[in-house]
């Protein structure tokens, strides 16, 4: 149950003071906008885009108000011996201390994942990434575990549930449960996290602009299905005093971020849709808009604040020094597969293949378009193709399969149809292209541009049926163009970017995720709808009617597994 006393903590009072100040600023802005001005921009329209003021993004105060209402268990201590558990399953608990070496390898189903700290070994004791940041005992590391590609896998969470009787801070009710109002001790209350690796992301509705004022959305949204009960909950739901929409998403890898955050010289306006790019509030520069599923935070720093206040239920913003250390750590850690159980050590002494493994990630160039034969997304695997004894030697056979998979990914055309923010950017619909058309960022296979698009993972009719997830009905207003491929009425499990932008054509558009460390962090897609690599391939095969052969599918799986 919520602890009313905690709501009055001094630290939170300071936060609310800041929020109130921001609210006042927003109110003044709105009042000015409402003053009649002949020929001025429409006062009824959105005055500001989503973004951040200082380190606070507009939606965060409303989120924090909800986070502070979620119960925090007084005893978050695991019931078993912590050191033993850590040794057994490689789980880093916030505050446990110890060293994260400059290089560490972790076993996974496919082989070994590597973690490299470019800055050298990290003393985690006292490091803000590895220490609890808020009331529920979580640190950044709780959901961004080295062994799991700086994310977490569903399997690792299941082990953690069993080993701690569900008392690990990762299961905090605020978002580690399907809804905070559910019984904390029951597995069913955490089924989305345990079965699909999904954390609850709770966002204010209507969306907030940079100052926290309401944006005017282009659509109405209704809750059609609410199996967790959170969207219709009187405290946490869309009709609560603090109207909130809950969606469920996978945590993204906090690694290889020099690629993910590279802004690539993005202009004031986003090349895909002409809307204003998100701005770093400290530098005034456009940001990549590529490291969260909905691009709601402009920088790693503002993301850390959001995470501390909401995932961590912190009562105050982390100090400037703590934020710097968190960002510095995130920008120097690299994660990628290093060894395969069939393919052996994946990178040779000369660093070949030059896009595989952690060292190549550390040393690679950022901001490079990879949808070309000069600097392919994952460079070249030609030497693996040439293995003369591939039919006899399992290692050579596996490597040849990986090389073929890279070719399928890179050069096998198919018809890409009805994908918002891909077909609409000038390619037409359909367009006859390859995986690398969208997955074009060198080394990560993200999109070099601001990367949200609707590939069908959350929207009907393409999304995998998921009765355990909420379903929303989105109705685009009559005074805006309909969604170009889905029309005016859209059913979606997660409206994605549209919950931030309020735009009809952003419904179901999700920022694509990096391809690195996949072997360590199933399930996949933002809603965890692909249990394994095979299901990723099968989804695309169905979505775009590609008709991959079984050999092509296996080659793609092998290729993805070594990244």
């Amino acid at each position, binding site marked *: 149950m919520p602890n009313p006393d905690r709501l009055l903590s001094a630290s939170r009072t300071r936060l609310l003071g800041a929020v109130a100040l921001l609210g006042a600023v927003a109110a003044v802005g709105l009042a000015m906008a409402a003053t009649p001005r002949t020929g001025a921009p429409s006062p009824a329209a959105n*005055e500001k885009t989503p973004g951040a003021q200082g380190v606070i993004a507009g939606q965060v105060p409303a989120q924090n108000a909800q986070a502070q209402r979620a119960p925090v268990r007084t005893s978050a201590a695991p019931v078993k011996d912590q050191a033993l558990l850590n040794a057994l399953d490689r789980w880093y608990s916030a505050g446990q201390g110890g060293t994260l070496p400059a290089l560490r390898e972790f076993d996974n189903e496919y082989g070994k994942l590597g973690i490299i700290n470019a800055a050298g070994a990290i003393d985690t004791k006292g490091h803000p990434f590895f220490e609890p940041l808020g009331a529920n005992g979580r640190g950044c590391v709780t959901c961004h575990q080295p062994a799991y590609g700086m994310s977490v896998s569903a399997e690792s969470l299941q082990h953690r549930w069993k080993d701690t009787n569900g008392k690990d801070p990762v299961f905090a009710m605020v978002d580690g449960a399907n809804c905070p109002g559910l019984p904390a001790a029951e597995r069913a209350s955490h089924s989305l996290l345990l079965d699909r690796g999904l954390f609850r992301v709770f966002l204010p509705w209507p969306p907030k602009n940079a100052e926290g004022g309401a944006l005017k959305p282009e659509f109405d949204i209704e809750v059609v299905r609410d199996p967790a009960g959170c969207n219709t909950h009187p405290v946490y739901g869309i009709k609560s005093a603090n109207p909130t929409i809950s969606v469920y998403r996978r945590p993204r890898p906090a690694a290889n971020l020099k690629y993910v955050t590279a802004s690539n010289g993005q202009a004031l306006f986003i090349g895909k849709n*002409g809307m204003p790019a998100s701005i770093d509030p400290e530098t005034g520069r456009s940001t990549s808009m590529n490291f969260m599923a909905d691009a709601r935070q402009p920088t790693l720093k503002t993301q850390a604040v959001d995470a501390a206040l909401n995932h961590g239920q912190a009562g105050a913003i982390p100090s400037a020094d703590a934020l710097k250390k968190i960002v510095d750590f995130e920008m120097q850690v690299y994660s990628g597969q290093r060894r395969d159980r069939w393919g052996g050590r994946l990178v040779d002494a000369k660093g070949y293949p030059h896009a595989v493994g952690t060292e190549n990630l550390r040393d690679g160039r950022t901001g490079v378009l990879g949808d070309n034969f000069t600097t392919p997304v994952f460079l070249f695997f030609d030497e693996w193709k040439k293995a003369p004894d591939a039919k006899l030697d399992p290692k050579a056979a596996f490597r040849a399969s990986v090389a073929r998979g890279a070719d399928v990914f890179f050069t096998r055309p198919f018809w890409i149809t009805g994908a918002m923010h891909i077909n609409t950017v000038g390619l037409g619909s359909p367009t006859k292209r390859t995986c690398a058309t969208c997955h074009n960022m060198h080394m990560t296979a993200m999109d070099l541009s601001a990367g949200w698009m609707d590939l069908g993972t959350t929207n009907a009719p393409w999304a995998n049926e998921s009765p355990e997830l909420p379903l929303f009905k989105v109705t685009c207003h009559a*005074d805006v163009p*309909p969604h170009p491929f889905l029309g005016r009425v859209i059913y979606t499990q997660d409206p994605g970017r549209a919950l931030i932008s309020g735009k009809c054509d952003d419904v179901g558009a999700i920022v694509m995720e990096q391809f690195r460390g996949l072997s360590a962090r199933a399930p996949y897609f933002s809603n965890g709808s692909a249990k394994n690599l095979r299901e990723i391939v099968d989804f695309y095969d169905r979505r775009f009617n590609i008709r991959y052969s079984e050999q092509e599918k296996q080659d793609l799986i092998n290729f993805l597994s070594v990244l």
Partner: protein
Amino acid sequence: MGKTGLMAVTACLALASAAQAAAPATQRNFVACPVVQDTKTVPCWLAEYKGETYYLGIQTDISAEWYPPFLGHKAMVEGTVSNEPRICGGIVLKPNKVSVLPELAPECTEMRPERAEYQVPFAPRGPGPSKGGLAFAPAPGTAAARPPAPAAPQPPFQARTFTVPYDFDTPTVTGRTSRALQQAVTYARAIKASSIEVMGYRGQVLMTDGPAREEAPGIAQVRAQQVGELLGQVGIAPSSIKVAWKDAPEPADGITDSTKRRTTILVKP
């Protein structure tokens, strides 16, 4: 004119005024479902009108001047019949402007399989990755790919107008057309502009088969207001932005009609 109901209303048909002649004989202005004609490399885009097939263009990439339309939507085609040999079986319309009409048209689904006689050897880019750069961009690493930054404007500063073009019946800025806004903002900042005047226009197209087809009423206001808001969102002081619009459709001649669907941004020193 309020914008409520703007997009629910399909574009109005109106009789051409007495001053408007019929579209020139070499002009083809019509609305039709686009058709995809596959080839061994990239697809051709076609449209049929009064029993004839017209070639519109081929798939390339975002650096192209011409962007393909969408199946699932009708397209407004505004093109000039050329003397070039047929491509993919279609009479070549060149130049042409193709607009994706906003409302869905589920009947527009036709994709034709490749045929040996249809070749597009002129395609600058195939269906896969590029040879190194975008189809119509300078080769990476060349001087042309790194043109010098334009010189900063010097006083006495001049008023300059930047034009945002639109597809037919499209009220919003796109990724490509936002370049005009980028240029306007850059210039406004460079000269410390005293005011920016935004003017939205509504177009119409003189159709080949007779009457002009007007864009939806109210679209000029929506265009102008969105541009004004976008300028404000990227840091132009709202008090310096004046927004106006002209809802009466611009005169149509059947040739230059696509250029009249626009918003202008006048940046004054």
